[in-house]
């Protein structure tokens, strides 16, 4: 991969276009190994209550994956309204010494984990005004994606399919439309299942892909992390190379001139 092909979000530049979550792994060792194999530079974390009275010596995710090595992207997973999402982001910024990059998600219901786009728009507006760089999870609606960009989000992240479903890109045409309209990075967030899904997202022109379950729930998460890294790189190169035009009928690859019969 050309080392000049970097990806910039909110003024921060990265060489990896694969962003990974840190949830659902068997243990901390597996988390660390899979993330290493993925080559990801941006990793998501969640913010939760500290358990009182339990062993406070257990390793902290930020000791394992330190902010001086990774760009930490705190999420608002589990938030179903504007207020809790904004509170979570403010706590995360304090937790990370003023680091203002966040992944906003405001969910609509537990069955689909689809975004509540109205609450998402309002929360995004409040967070942008408060100085956050907001990478926002949304559905694959080009109109909402454009509105989130207009509000000032640093990146718009449409889902491929429901979070954790592994169904792959259900609506590639919408993803392509979102990419074509955009002036901020577009990342597919959620729903990819395997390396070809990640490659497809990149071939559609996305700037990156954010995933968690597709790696963590594989039989061999470390190997899948490596596969995803390659899928992202292959898809990106194919996008930059510009694919051939698809045709209905055959076109011989060997010359017809010079046939001796």
């Amino acid at each position, binding site marked *: 991969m050309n080392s000049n092909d970097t990806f910039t979000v909110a003024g921060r530049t990265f060489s990896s276009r694969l962003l990974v*979550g840190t*949830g659902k792994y068997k243990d901390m060792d597996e988390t660390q190994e899979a993330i290493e194999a993925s080559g990801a530079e941006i990793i998501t974390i*969640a913010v939760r209550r500290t358990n*009182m009275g339990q062993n406070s010596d257990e390793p902290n995710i930020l000791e394992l994956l330190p902010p001086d090595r990774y760009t930490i992207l705190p999420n608002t997973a589990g938030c179903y309204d504007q207020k809790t999402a904004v509170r979570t982001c403010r706590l995360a910024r304090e937790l990370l010494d003023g680091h203002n990059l966040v992944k906003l998600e405001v969910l609509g219901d537990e069955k689909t984990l689809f975004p509540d786009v109205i609450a998402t728009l309002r929360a995004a507006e409040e967070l942008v005004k408060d100085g956050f760089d907001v990478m926002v999870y949304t559905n694959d609606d080009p109109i909402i994606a454009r509105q989130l960009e207009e509000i000032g989000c640093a990146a718009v992240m449409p889902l491929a399919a429901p979070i*954790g479903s592994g169904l792959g890109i259900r609506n590639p045409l919408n993803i392509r439309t979102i990419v074509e309209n955009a002036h901020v990075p577009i990342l597919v967030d959620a729903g990819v299942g395997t390396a070809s899904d990640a490659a497809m997202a990149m071939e559609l022109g996305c700037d990156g892909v954010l995933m968690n379950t597709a790696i963590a729930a594989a039989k061999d998460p470390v190997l899948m992390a490596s596969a995803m890294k390659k899928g992202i790189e292959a898809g990106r190169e194919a996008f930059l190379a510009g694919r051939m035009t698809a045709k209905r009928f055959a076109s011989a690859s060997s010359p017809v001139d010079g046939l001796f019969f």
Partner: protein
Amino acid sequence: MQIILNGETRNLDEDATVADLIAELNLTDQRLAVEVNEELVPRSTFSNHHLKAGDEMEIVHAIGGG
């Protein structure tokens, strides 16, 4: 006095600060964030933020998530 800490009732000395409570919980050097009554309490103000009876306090940290 009583406050609600992470959803559970807790007894505290009158006039205890956020810093006092964090020390009592052996969390002093941990990477955490605090809010009281849904408002963020910056780390720099832990030692002069006095808790009041009935305060609802949250102490949070980072965990794995997608």
